[in-house]
């Protein structure tokens, strides 16, 4: 089982990387871009078990280490 965790800055936190990418896209002529947020992707391979249990476990990993709740939020996808 693979857990994909995407970690991004909270909407309230200024993301200068996202802003820079946004501007670069516009300079290339991509006009329809409303907002860009930059984040990181963490792939975790897990041993067996149920999807629900895996999600719970990864949730704990996020809270303890993978994301900093003060500035970041996370989304978990189990495949």
């Amino acid at each position, binding site marked *: 089982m693979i857990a994909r965790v995407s970690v991004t*800055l909270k909407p309230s936190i200024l993301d*200068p990387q996202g802003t820079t990418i946004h501007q670069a896209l516009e300079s290339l002529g991509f006009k329809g871009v409303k907002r860009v947020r930059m984040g990181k992707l963490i792939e975790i391979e897990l041993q067996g078990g149920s999807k629900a249990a895996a999600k719970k476990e990864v949730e704990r990993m996020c809270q303890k280490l993978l994301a*900093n709740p003060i*500035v970041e939020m996370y989304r978990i996808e189990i495949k």
Partner: protein
Amino acid sequence: MKFGVVVFPGSNCDQDCVHVLRDVLEQEVVLLWHQESSLRGCDCVVLPGGFSYGDYLRTGAIAKLSPVMKSVAAFAKDGGLVIGICNGFQILLEAGLLPGAMLRNTSLRFICRYVTVRVERTDTPFTNRFQPGQVLRLPIAHNEGNYTVDAAGLKRIAERGQVLFRYCDADGQVTDAANPNGSLEAIAGLCNEAGNVLGMMPHPERASEPSLGSADGRGVFESILQSVACR
């Protein structure tokens, strides 16, 4: 007095701290490897600058899990003096020993240069040798020094007077132009509520001898000596 300088894999300012404390201020210093749990009876623990664990995941995020940090947290809880410089500050934030978090500099650049900071309080173990409002010339060298905290946290910090240093211009004025990294309220250094744990982005250990261009940072270490001597 006895200082303990913690060494994480990737620390690179540990020997600078040792030099200032041992050779310049003539104090006893021991190096504490991050796998150690004993602080060996130190009066003050220094978390030095560098790139602990290569800054992987987030600055300080892995270092906070080191065995030595458990002891540092217990030491701090008992009122022991802890100073985190640069990466050390980032580790203290990640460990929850100081409120808030660090973001990348708004310029997205690593900044390595002298800045000026204003001393906001002089009644602390880390600043008692300075004058109120004194402007210090200290070097910074970081990519993640853009301090942030939520509105409630900022209010708490302000009410308790936890900000000890703010980025300012040469005249001591806090301006946007004098803020090198976008740090909230120009915060360059802050302490915990009890006042015994300090985190600061500028490097006092790199500015403790006139031959290095500034000796303004020496006052931070002399303040620690003074406060321990007066205990």
